[in-house]
């Protein structure tokens, strides 16, 4: 792929580009083939009466989702959102401005469903649904990572993610799906996780990891699979089972559970926290995937559910799981359902269960990337804002050198990694690189100011995205870390013998 020459050099992470009309018009991800569409109940290819079907689906969504109606009808085109999308900042394509992205669909909605659009289309910018419009939808609704940054800044809270999800849902229903997301959802239905890792392979992988921990520490730490009667069911993104740096995070969870002395297990049936049903805007798909978690929890007879580090999965887990697959009255009500792994770890830290040697992370000068879905669509404990505080508390407890990035690019204003929302696919690499440039510019700032070498995140997508993207900005591939990887580095297991070489910097 390109060497990054086309990435805009930004003086500031939020520097506003000149408009570059049509700059990204030709980019689109691979379209789903019938074998990706049909298992999800979508038509295999573009249906004959696609226009009627699309409008029917649009009316259906409007009747089922208040946000869709309100967001399409109340925008005043004030322009507050126009400079808030990382894809706009990185590409300059005006159709990547949130309001313009919404307008791609709003213009059609107005034409067929509003008085002004029916009778005065030119006046309000309404337009017919044509094949060109459809292609434009496919392209630009796959240049949105559903990160919700625009909705923070909109005076009416209009959330472009809702419009993107609706547009993708409409397209899937007339036969135009996205290959990446739909293929993955198919694997979850068939095998239980995004990677298509079957129970046997999963067990073997986790046994290897147990050996790794024992080799490293001399202590036997278990990573149990399908253990009936365990107290805790860990639901974590399958990337944690074999992608880097995700695995190191998983080792961190295992060590924390071990030291806390709790019994836990992963499930081979629900071996996936990620829920791409969110990305394609399908309530039904999201529900089917969520119900696997409920079924696994019942089957294994666990008392609690804990989610591993994953951004959108935590949104679905925190905000939607109770709706989609609840009620969870069969679990121990003394714990939140589900609980975030960082909530668990922070509590153990406060209890003093964990023996931490911070100096083991002294080779790292760290910053932290707030993942969009955690930041803008969830909490971690009961406190609003805990989604920002708890990760930082844990980081500061295990790492001496921590530096936050520009406040306008963190917390609820965090910039997306550029790979979320179903865009973490090689066919969108150009978009991923450009969309990451605002975030990477902020990272470069803290490198200049504080010598930052590494960045931590609590999202599987962010981690994968940055391990690809950071090298293009002059960082090592392993500059992106799991928060629990830092915990894993710093933790000294009970009975573990320590040689004096501080740290284990690879």
């Amino acid at each position, binding site marked *: 792929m390109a060497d990054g020459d086309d990435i805009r050099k930004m003086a500031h992470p939020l520097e506003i580009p000149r408009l570059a009309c049509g700059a990204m018009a030709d980019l689109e991800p691979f379209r789903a083939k019938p074998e990706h569409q049909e298992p999800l109940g979508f038509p295999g290819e573009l249906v004959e009466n696609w226009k009627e079907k699309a409008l029917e689906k649009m009316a259906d969504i409007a009747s089922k989702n208040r946000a869709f109606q309100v967001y399409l009808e109340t925008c005043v085109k004030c322009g507050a959102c*126009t400079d808030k999308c990382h894809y706009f900042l990185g590409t300059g394509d005006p159709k990547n401005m949130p309001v313009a992205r919404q307008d791609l669909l709003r213009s059609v909605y107005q034409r067929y469903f509003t008085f002004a659009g029916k009778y005065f289309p030119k006046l309000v910018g309404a337009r017919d649904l044509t094949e060109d419009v459809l292609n434009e939808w496919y392209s630009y609704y796959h240049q949105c990572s559903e990160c919700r940054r625009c909705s923070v800044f909109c005076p009416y809270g209009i959330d472009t993610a809702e419009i993107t999800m609706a547009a993708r849902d409409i397209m899937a229903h007339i036969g135009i799906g996205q290959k990446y997301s739909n293929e993955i959802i198919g694997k979850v239905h068939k095998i239980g996780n995004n990677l298509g890792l079957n129970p046997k392979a999963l067990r073997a992988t986790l046994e290897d990891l147990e050996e790794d921990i024992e080799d490293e520490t001399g202590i036997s730490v278990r990573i149990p699979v399908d253990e009936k009667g365990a107290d805790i069911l860990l639901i974590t993104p399958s990337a944690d089972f074999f992608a880097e740096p995700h695995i190191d995070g998983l080792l961190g969870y295992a060590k924390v559970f071990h030291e806390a002395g709790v019994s836990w297990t992963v499930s081979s049936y629900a071996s996936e926290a990620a829920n791409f049903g969110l990305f394609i805007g399908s309530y039904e798909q999201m529900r089917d995937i969520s119900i696997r978690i409920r079924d696994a929890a019942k089957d294994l007879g666990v008392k609690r559910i804990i989610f591993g580090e994953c951004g959108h999965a935590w949104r679905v887990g925190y905000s939607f799981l109770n709706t989609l697959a609840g009620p969870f009255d069969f679990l121990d009500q003394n714990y939140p359902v589900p609980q975030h792994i960082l909530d668990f770890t922070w509590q153990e830290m406060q209890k003093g269960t964990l023996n931490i040697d911070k100096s083991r992370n002294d080779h790292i000068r760290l910053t932290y990337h707030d993942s969009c879905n955690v930041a803008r669509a969830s909490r971690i404990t009961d406190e609003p804002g805990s989604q920002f505080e708890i990760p930082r508390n844990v980081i500061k407890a295990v790492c001496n050198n921590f530096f936050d990035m520009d406040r306008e690019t963190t917390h609820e204003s965090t910039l997306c990694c550029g790979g979320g929302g179903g865009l973490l696919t090689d066919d969108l690499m150009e978009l991923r690189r450009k969309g990451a440039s605002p975030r990477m510019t902020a990272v470069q700032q803290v490198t200049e100011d504080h010598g930052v070498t590494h960045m931590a995140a609590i999202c599987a997508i962010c981690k994968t995205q940055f391990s690809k993207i950071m090298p293009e900005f002059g960082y090592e591939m392993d500059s992106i870390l799991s928060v629990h990887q830092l915990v894993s580095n710093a933790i000294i297991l009970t009975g573990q013998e320590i040689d004096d070489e501080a740290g284990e910097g690879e």
Partner: protein
Amino acid sequence: MLSIVYAILFYLATAIMVVGVGMKIRKYARAPAPLKIPTTPAPTTQFGVILRMAREVVFFESLFKSNKWIWIFSWTFHMGMWLVLIRHLRYFTEPVWGWVVFAQPFGTYAGFAMLGGLLGLWARRFLVERIRYISNPSDHLMLALLVAIVGSGLMMRFVVGADIIMVKAYMLGLMRFQIETLPADPVLLLHLGLVASLMIIFPISKLMHAPGLFFSPSRNQIDNPREKRHLAPWAAKLEE
């Protein structure tokens, strides 16, 4: 004759606005929000949501975070508008309420704040490339309409004057379904005609942002999805 035409116009405009907005609100209220989607950090109690909404409505909190220029222009315009509207209550009440009398001097000059805000917002539609790109003809027309209403109002108040005694008698008459004589003053007729048009297009235009804000799930939902199960009626059917 003129008095009758304007009487019909105002009855019609009022009916369209009230019924139209009412229908839209009913439509929004009836559509379920299937999932909890408040933009976080979000309040965890109903009272917290009321405070969040109040900050949005009174201070335009999100817009303030977003863009100080748009904020200053639109906040000036909207707050000026409230003062002007309050001031106008004197044409519909007899005796005039005390607090309306109190607001009178502020309301008089608030017209300039409205005008300044509107012109600032309009200038951005020409001068800022991004906002020029997203502007439709209707966005310009809406600003033109508002500027004309404010301009004609200021003309009457500060330049040409108007027979406000007669206007008030006419308005009070309308409220009792009696048609008094409306002064045949061109600036006044323009002002009233434009106000009636604004009322008529209210329910079919982006002016619906005013009631719409209260139905925005990302702002009006309580952040308590783990504590309280949220389920839309259509989604509940999936469980049967």
